[in-house]
């Protein structure tokens, strides 16, 4: 159904993930919380970091620390090589070209960059199409753009399972649609959206598509050419990399024609007080000293998941998803919110008569870390008539035993509030 399935790598290998070995790579997992072994199920918020990423950060700061693109000395050369090497790693990971990869602070900044720069050409009456399941970071920048330009923000609805209704989406597309912005995977529900089909439909109207991939890249192989998207954004910290670093992929011919987002050093070719010539992409969009260590750490994270194999990760996480769905459904009073046919390993649920915050406090007491709240998707919560949900989100290092611990803790919450 989506490119993410056809584009998977190395299916011939087919090795199951050795989770015990994987867990040994993550120092933070081996601790007690409230006297219990930590069960970390808040991976959609941020993931823990493998030793390889920590080593990359420490290596940069302890050996190669210098600024990039300007020094003639050895350390600056090493820092530049590592930083540009990271760009190449990201490009390979997405099947893009290095010059199409802009480093940002995260998904949010990547989306804002596109809304600000690409969006500056919108005029009154133009339309921006998003969907009902977007994270606030894929709503607010477009609202701001609409306010600035007089463009109109339109919202494609979802069904009760949490899937975009494609017919409705298609109906909202038109010759005035300039930008379509959609999550690849919903952070609150786990729905994997048919992004390839969305791109195809949007392109028939000449609209450009930005895909918010923050929740997708940790879980499935992404090929921006197969998806045929125009922009793809993701964050390093959700794929086992550092916080403060993210990526915007943009089709070269689009980036080339886009005005700068921020002014400063590194994004210029020459400056006089009369006129400044801007640098080419991606540097045009990287004003100031970038997060060099972050980019290097992100590359280490990408190399780490690539080494394990995204198909192996996906298969393992799907096992966890199915087990968690089953275990939670068996508990009286539990209702899972978001039951799409195609989901990543995210389980949002409500427990009858118990507020999600109380559920999360009881779970924390049992060492189980989950998120309770609206997951920065208030319009989506409103769609389901809920103030909040409890969300368990899984990563490659989670185990079936941890699924059991989650279910036990939810039962405990139910007993306590019975």
């Amino acid at each position, binding site marked *: 159904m989506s490119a993410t399935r056809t584009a998977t790598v190395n299916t011939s290998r087919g090795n199951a993930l050795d989770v015990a070995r994987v867990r040994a790579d993550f120092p933070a997992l081996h601790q007690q919380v*409230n*006297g219990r072994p930590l069960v970390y199920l808040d991976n959609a918020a941020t993931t823990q970091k493998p030793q390889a990423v920590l080593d990359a950060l420490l290596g940069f700061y302890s050996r190669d620390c210098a600024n990039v693109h300007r020094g003639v000395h050895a350390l600056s050369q090493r820092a530049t090589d590592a930083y540009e090497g990271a760009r190449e790693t990201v490009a390979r990971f997405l099947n893009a070209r290095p010059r199409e990869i802009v480093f940002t602070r995260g998904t949010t900044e990547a989306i804002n960059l596109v809304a600000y720069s690409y969006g500056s050409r919108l005029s009154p009456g133009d339309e921006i199409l998003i969907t009902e399941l977007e994270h606030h970071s894929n709503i607010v920048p477009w609202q701001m753009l609409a306010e600035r330009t007089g463009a109109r923000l339109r919202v494609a609805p979802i069904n009760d399972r949490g899937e975009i209704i494609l017919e409705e989406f298609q109906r909202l597309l038109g010759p005035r649609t300039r930008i379509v912005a959609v999550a690849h995977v919903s952070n609150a529900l786990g729905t994997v959206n048919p992004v390839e089909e969305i791109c195809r439909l949007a392109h028939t109207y000449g609209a450009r598509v930005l895909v918010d991939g923050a929740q997708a890249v940790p879980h499935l192989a992404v090929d921006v050419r197969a998806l045929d998207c125009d922009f793809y954004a993701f964050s390093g910290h959700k794929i086992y990399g550092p916080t403060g670093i993210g990526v915007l992929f943009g089709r070269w011919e689009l980036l080339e024609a886009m005005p700068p987002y921020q002014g400063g050093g590194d994004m210029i070719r020459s400056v006089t007080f009369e006129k400044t010539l801007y640098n080419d992409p991606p540097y045009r969009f990287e004003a100031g000293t970038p997060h060099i260590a972050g980019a290097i750490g992100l590359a280490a994270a990408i190399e780490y998941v690539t080494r394990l194999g995204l198909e192996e990760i996906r298969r393992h996480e799907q096992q966890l998803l199915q087990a968690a769905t089953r275990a939670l459904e068996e508990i009286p009073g539990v209702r899972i919110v978001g039951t799409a046919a195609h989901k990543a390993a995210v389980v949002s649920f409500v427990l009858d*008569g*118990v*507020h*999600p*915050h*109380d559920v999360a*406090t*009881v779970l924390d*007491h049992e060492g189980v870390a989950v998120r*309770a*709240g*609206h997951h920065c998707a208030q319009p989506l*919560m409103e769609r389901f008539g809920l*103030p*909040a949900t409890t969300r368990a989100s899984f990563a490659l290092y989670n185990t079936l035993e941890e699924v059991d611990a989650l279910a036990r803790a939810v039962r405990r919450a139910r007993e*306590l*509030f019975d």
Partner: protein
Amino acid sequence: MKVALEDLYQQLIMDHGRRPRNFRVLQDATHHLEGYNPLCGDRFTVYLKIADGRVADVSFQGSGCAISTASASLMTEAVKGKTEDEVEKLFEAFHAVVTGKRAPDAASLGKLAAFAGVAAYPVRVKCATLPWHTLKGALAGSKQPVSTE
């Protein structure tokens, strides 16, 4: 330090969380205000009827977690009949206890001492204090909804 869950979710709190008292709209309210915790979605409206400088009647409506609902319910019981000054002092004492700055003192706090366990859960302090901040805003005649963020 591990605190038992039952220290947080005391019987009194569970009871008021499940069956909140004074849970209604006050038709002849002289003051009312909405309070909202955007982080968890707790949302309450507090209604007050002030006569001769005293809380003649008080009620609330809305939805939230067990801690915030129980806090609102027990708050309405605690402030009824009190002067604005006394309400202010009670909130100060309550706030000091739920933030762990003062040991609970049943003599001055009464039933509200049940919330002492909240101090061990810093992220839940806002749940316990949201109704009180809303009450305070209503008393001050504020029209802007109170937000914990």
